Protein backbone atom coordinates (compact mmCIF):
# COMPACT_ATOMS: atom_id res chain seq x y z
CA UNK A 1 0.00 0.00 0.00
CA UNK A 2 2.87 2.39 0.78
CA UNK A 3 4.27 1.86 -2.70
CA UNK A 4 0.84 2.55 -4.17
CA UNK A 5 0.50 5.77 -2.16
CA UNK A 6 3.91 6.99 -3.29
CA UNK A 7 3.09 6.23 -6.91
CA UNK A 8 -0.41 7.68 -6.70
CA UNK A 9 -1.22 10.02 -9.57
CA UNK A 10 -4.49 11.98 -9.27
CA UNK A 11 -7.08 11.25 -11.98
CA UNK A 12 -4.97 8.34 -13.28
CA UNK A 13 -4.89 5.96 -10.32
CA UNK A 14 -7.84 5.29 -7.98
CA UNK A 15 -7.93 6.76 -4.50
CA UNK A 16 -6.79 4.16 -1.96
CA UNK A 17 -10.14 4.16 -0.14
CA UNK A 18 -10.30 0.36 -0.04
CA UNK A 19 -13.37 -1.12 1.62
CA UNK A 20 -13.29 1.07 4.73
CA UNK A 21 -16.49 2.65 6.04
CA UNK A 22 -15.24 6.12 5.08
CA UNK A 23 -16.16 5.61 1.43
CA UNK A 24 -19.83 6.04 2.35
CA UNK A 25 -19.11 9.70 3.21
CA UNK A 26 -18.73 10.26 -0.53
CA UNK A 27 -22.52 9.96 -0.63
CA UNK A 28 -22.83 13.44 0.96
CA UNK A 29 -21.14 15.52 -1.77
CA UNK A 30 -22.84 13.34 -4.39
CA UNK A 31 -26.33 14.20 -3.08
CA UNK A 32 -25.49 17.90 -2.67
CA UNK A 33 -24.15 18.20 -6.22
CA UNK A 34 -27.06 16.28 -7.73
CA UNK A 35 -29.59 18.46 -5.86
CA UNK A 36 -27.83 21.66 -6.92
CA UNK A 37 -27.64 20.65 -10.59
CA UNK A 38 -31.23 19.43 -10.71
CA UNK A 39 -32.66 22.52 -9.06
CA UNK A 40 -30.54 24.81 -11.26
CA UNK A 41 -32.29 23.34 -14.28
CA UNK A 42 -35.71 23.17 -12.67
CA UNK A 43 -35.99 26.58 -10.99
CA UNK A 44 -36.92 29.67 -12.92
CA UNK A 45 -35.72 32.06 -10.22
CA UNK A 46 -32.25 31.08 -9.05
CA UNK A 47 -32.48 33.19 -5.88
CA UNK A 48 -34.40 30.23 -4.42
CA UNK A 49 -31.63 27.79 -5.33
CA UNK A 50 -29.91 27.38 -1.91
CA UNK A 51 -33.17 26.76 -0.02
CA UNK A 52 -34.72 24.49 -2.65
CA UNK A 53 -31.48 22.49 -2.99
CA UNK A 54 -31.23 22.08 0.77
CA UNK A 55 -34.82 20.80 0.89
CA UNK A 56 -34.14 18.33 -1.91
CA UNK A 57 -30.92 17.16 -0.18
CA UNK A 58 -32.87 16.57 3.01
CA UNK A 59 -35.57 14.64 1.15
CA UNK A 60 -32.97 12.42 -0.54
CA UNK A 61 -31.17 11.75 2.76
CA UNK A 62 -34.42 10.95 4.60
CA UNK A 63 -35.85 8.65 1.95
CA UNK A 64 -32.54 6.87 1.38
CA UNK A 65 -32.31 6.42 5.14
CA UNK A 66 -35.79 4.85 5.13
CA UNK A 67 -34.80 2.64 2.21
CA UNK A 68 -31.61 1.54 3.96
CA UNK A 69 -33.54 0.76 7.15
CA UNK A 70 -36.17 -1.20 5.24
CA UNK A 71 -33.51 -3.22 3.43
CA UNK A 72 -31.70 -3.85 6.73
CA UNK A 73 -34.92 -5.15 8.31
CA UNK A 74 -35.63 -7.24 5.22
CA UNK A 75 -32.14 -8.69 5.45
CA UNK A 76 -32.68 -9.60 9.11
CA UNK A 77 -35.98 -11.42 8.76
CA UNK A 78 -36.08 -12.80 5.23
Amino acid at each position, binding site marked *: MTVLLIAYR*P*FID*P*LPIGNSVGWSLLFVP*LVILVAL*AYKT*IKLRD*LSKLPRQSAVLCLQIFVFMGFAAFALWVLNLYV
Partner: protein
Amino acid sequence: MSFDPPANSGSPPATKTPGASAGMEAPGSAGVAGASGAAADPSAGKASHRVSSRWNLAAAFAGWLLPGLGHFLLGQLRRAVVLGTTIGTLWLGGLLIGGVSVIDRNDHPAWFLGQMLVAPSWAANAYRSNLVAAHDGGFAPDDVPPFEPAYARAYEQGTLFTSLAGLLNLLAIIDVLYRDPSEDPTPAAARERGADA
Protein backbone atom coordinates in the same frame (compact mmCIF):
# COMPACT_ATOMS: atom_id res chain seq x y z
CA MET B 1 -28.35 25.20 -35.67
CA SER B 2 -29.24 28.77 -34.77
CA PHE B 3 -29.96 29.87 -31.27
CA ASP B 4 -31.16 33.36 -32.12
CA PRO B 5 -34.00 34.53 -29.93
CA PRO B 6 -37.44 34.46 -31.51
CA ALA B 7 -38.73 37.78 -32.84
CA ASN B 8 -41.57 37.83 -30.35
CA SER B 9 -40.11 38.32 -26.90
CA GLY B 10 -43.40 37.39 -25.27
CA SER B 11 -44.91 33.95 -25.56
CA PRO B 12 -43.38 32.59 -28.76
CA PRO B 13 -45.81 31.34 -31.36
CA ALA B 14 -46.34 27.64 -31.69
CA THR B 15 -44.61 27.33 -35.02
CA LYS B 16 -43.57 24.17 -36.73
CA THR B 17 -39.91 23.29 -37.08
CA PRO B 18 -38.46 21.55 -40.15
CA GLY B 19 -39.01 18.32 -38.27
CA ALA B 20 -42.70 19.09 -38.14
CA SER B 21 -43.02 18.48 -41.85
CA ALA B 22 -42.21 14.86 -41.12
CA GLY B 23 -45.17 14.65 -38.80
CA MET B 24 -43.21 15.70 -35.71
CA GLU B 25 -44.60 18.53 -33.66
CA ALA B 26 -42.36 21.46 -32.85
CA PRO B 27 -40.59 20.84 -29.56
CA GLY B 28 -41.77 24.06 -28.01
CA SER B 29 -45.31 23.98 -29.26
CA ALA B 30 -46.76 21.77 -26.58
CA GLY B 31 -44.88 23.61 -23.86
CA VAL B 32 -45.77 27.00 -25.31
CA ALA B 33 -49.40 26.06 -25.37
CA GLY B 34 -49.04 24.90 -21.78
CA ALA B 35 -47.31 28.12 -20.76
CA SER B 36 -49.98 30.26 -22.41
CA GLY B 37 -52.67 28.19 -20.80
CA ALA B 38 -51.00 28.57 -17.44
CA ALA B 39 -50.93 32.33 -17.88
CA ALA B 40 -54.62 32.42 -18.66
CA ASP B 41 -55.68 29.86 -16.11
CA PRO B 42 -53.37 29.30 -13.14
CA SER B 43 -55.16 26.07 -12.27
CA ALA B 44 -54.22 24.60 -15.62
CA GLY B 45 -50.70 23.84 -14.39
CA LYS B 46 -47.49 25.81 -14.53
CA ALA B 47 -44.47 25.63 -16.75
CA SER B 48 -41.14 26.22 -15.03
CA HIS B 49 -39.66 27.92 -18.09
CA ARG B 50 -40.73 29.58 -21.28
CA VAL B 51 -39.78 27.33 -24.15
CA SER B 52 -38.31 28.28 -27.47
CA SER B 53 -40.19 27.70 -30.69
CA ARG B 54 -36.97 26.38 -32.24
CA TRP B 55 -34.33 23.98 -31.10
CA ASN B 56 -31.09 25.55 -29.83
CA LEU B 57 -28.97 22.84 -31.42
CA ALA B 58 -25.62 24.68 -31.37
CA ALA B 59 -26.01 25.63 -27.72
CA ALA B 60 -27.04 22.07 -26.84
CA PHE B 61 -23.95 20.72 -28.59
CA ALA B 62 -21.81 23.24 -26.70
CA GLY B 63 -23.43 22.04 -23.46
CA TRP B 64 -22.41 18.49 -24.31
CA LEU B 65 -18.83 19.60 -25.04
CA LEU B 66 -18.54 21.44 -21.73
CA PRO B 67 -21.26 21.38 -19.05
CA GLY B 68 -22.76 24.85 -18.62
CA LEU B 69 -21.46 26.21 -21.92
CA GLY B 70 -24.87 25.85 -23.58
CA HIS B 71 -26.56 27.99 -20.94
CA PHE B 72 -23.71 30.49 -21.18
CA LEU B 73 -24.33 30.83 -24.92
CA LEU B 74 -28.01 31.49 -24.22
CA GLY B 75 -27.05 34.29 -21.81
CA GLN B 76 -27.94 32.36 -18.66
CA LEU B 77 -24.66 33.12 -16.90
CA ARG B 78 -25.61 32.15 -13.32
CA ARG B 79 -27.21 28.91 -14.44
CA ALA B 80 -24.14 28.17 -16.57
CA VAL B 81 -21.74 28.74 -13.67
CA VAL B 82 -23.71 26.54 -11.25
CA LEU B 83 -24.21 23.76 -13.81
CA GLY B 84 -20.59 23.87 -14.95
CA THR B 85 -19.36 23.75 -11.37
CA THR B 86 -21.67 20.99 -10.14
CA ILE B 87 -21.53 18.67 -13.15
CA GLY B 88 -17.81 19.34 -13.64
CA THR B 89 -17.10 18.60 -9.97
CA LEU B 90 -19.10 15.36 -10.16
CA TRP B 91 -17.22 14.22 -13.26
CA LEU B 92 -13.79 15.23 -12.00
CA GLY B 93 -14.62 13.79 -8.58
CA GLY B 94 -15.44 10.44 -10.17
CA LEU B 95 -12.20 10.48 -12.08
CA LEU B 96 -10.29 11.42 -8.93
CA ILE B 97 -11.90 8.62 -6.92
CA GLY B 98 -11.67 5.82 -9.46
CA GLY B 99 -8.88 6.92 -11.74
CA VAL B 100 -8.91 6.79 -15.50
CA SER B 101 -9.91 3.10 -15.53
CA VAL B 102 -13.53 3.88 -14.56
CA ILE B 103 -14.15 5.29 -18.04
CA ASP B 104 -13.88 2.25 -20.26
CA ARG B 105 -16.11 1.98 -23.29
CA ASN B 106 -15.17 -1.64 -24.02
CA ASP B 107 -15.20 -3.19 -20.55
CA HIS B 108 -18.37 -1.57 -19.19
CA PRO B 109 -20.36 -0.05 -22.05
CA ALA B 110 -23.54 0.35 -19.98
CA TRP B 111 -21.83 2.81 -17.61
CA PHE B 112 -20.24 4.51 -20.58
CA LEU B 113 -23.72 5.27 -21.96
CA GLY B 114 -24.11 7.70 -19.06
CA GLN B 115 -20.51 8.87 -19.03
CA MET B 116 -20.45 9.75 -22.73
CA LEU B 117 -23.06 12.47 -22.14
CA VAL B 118 -20.15 14.60 -20.95
CA ALA B 119 -17.85 14.95 -23.96
CA PRO B 120 -14.53 14.87 -22.03
CA SER B 121 -15.36 11.23 -21.20
CA TRP B 122 -14.50 10.38 -24.81
CA ALA B 123 -11.09 12.01 -24.34
CA ALA B 124 -10.55 10.12 -21.06
CA ASN B 125 -11.55 6.86 -22.76
CA ALA B 126 -9.15 7.53 -25.64
CA TYR B 127 -6.36 8.42 -23.21
CA ARG B 128 -6.90 5.20 -21.24
CA SER B 129 -7.00 3.16 -24.47
CA ASN B 130 -3.71 4.72 -25.62
CA LEU B 131 -2.08 3.91 -22.28
CA VAL B 132 -3.21 0.29 -22.55
CA ALA B 133 -2.14 0.02 -26.22
CA ALA B 134 1.31 1.44 -25.47
CA HIS B 135 1.82 -0.98 -22.58
CA ASP B 136 3.36 -4.34 -23.40
CA GLY B 137 2.84 -6.30 -20.20
CA GLY B 138 -0.15 -7.11 -18.03
CA PHE B 139 -1.53 -5.32 -15.00
CA ALA B 140 0.34 -7.23 -12.29
CA PRO B 141 2.47 -4.96 -10.03
CA ASP B 142 5.67 -6.50 -11.48
CA ASP B 143 4.61 -5.46 -14.96
CA VAL B 144 4.61 -1.75 -13.92
CA PRO B 145 1.18 -1.00 -15.43
CA PRO B 146 0.49 2.47 -16.87
CA PHE B 147 -2.29 3.00 -14.30
CA GLU B 148 -3.69 1.08 -11.39
CA PRO B 149 -7.10 -0.42 -12.23
CA ALA B 150 -9.90 0.51 -9.83
CA TYR B 151 -11.65 -2.22 -7.88
CA ALA B 152 -14.44 -2.47 -5.31
CA ARG B 153 -15.60 0.81 -3.72
CA ALA B 154 -13.27 3.06 -5.72
CA TYR B 155 -14.57 1.55 -8.95
CA GLU B 156 -18.23 1.75 -7.84
CA GLN B 157 -18.00 5.35 -6.66
CA GLY B 158 -15.95 6.47 -9.65
CA THR B 159 -18.39 5.04 -12.18
CA LEU B 160 -21.38 6.35 -10.19
CA PHE B 161 -20.03 9.90 -10.01
CA THR B 162 -19.02 10.08 -13.70
CA SER B 163 -22.25 8.47 -14.94
CA LEU B 164 -24.43 10.73 -12.80
CA ALA B 165 -22.52 13.73 -14.17
CA GLY B 166 -23.44 12.54 -17.67
CA LEU B 167 -27.11 12.00 -16.82
CA LEU B 168 -27.37 15.44 -15.20
CA ASN B 169 -25.69 16.94 -18.25
CA LEU B 170 -28.37 15.26 -20.38
CA LEU B 171 -31.01 17.17 -18.39
CA ALA B 172 -29.01 20.37 -18.93
CA ILE B 173 -28.71 19.66 -22.68
CA ILE B 174 -32.47 19.07 -23.00
CA ASP B 175 -33.09 22.27 -21.02
CA VAL B 176 -30.81 24.23 -23.36
CA LEU B 177 -32.47 22.68 -26.39
CA TYR B 178 -35.91 23.99 -25.43
CA ARG B 179 -35.09 27.11 -23.42
CA ASP B 180 -36.22 30.45 -24.81
CA PRO B 181 -33.03 32.54 -25.16
CA SER B 182 -34.99 35.77 -24.80
CA GLU B 183 -36.15 34.82 -21.32
CA ASP B 184 -34.89 37.35 -18.82
CA PRO B 185 -32.95 35.32 -16.27
CA THR B 186 -32.87 37.96 -13.54
CA PRO B 187 -34.82 37.19 -10.36
CA ALA B 188 -36.54 40.58 -10.45
CA ALA B 189 -37.95 39.89 -13.90
CA ALA B 190 -39.13 36.47 -12.81
CA ARG B 191 -40.90 37.98 -9.80
CA GLU B 192 -42.48 40.62 -12.04
CA ARG B 193 -43.98 37.90 -14.18
CA GLY B 194 -45.26 36.23 -11.05
CA ALA B 195 -43.53 33.07 -12.12
CA ASP B 196 -42.75 30.35 -9.66
CA ALA B 197 -40.77 27.17 -9.95
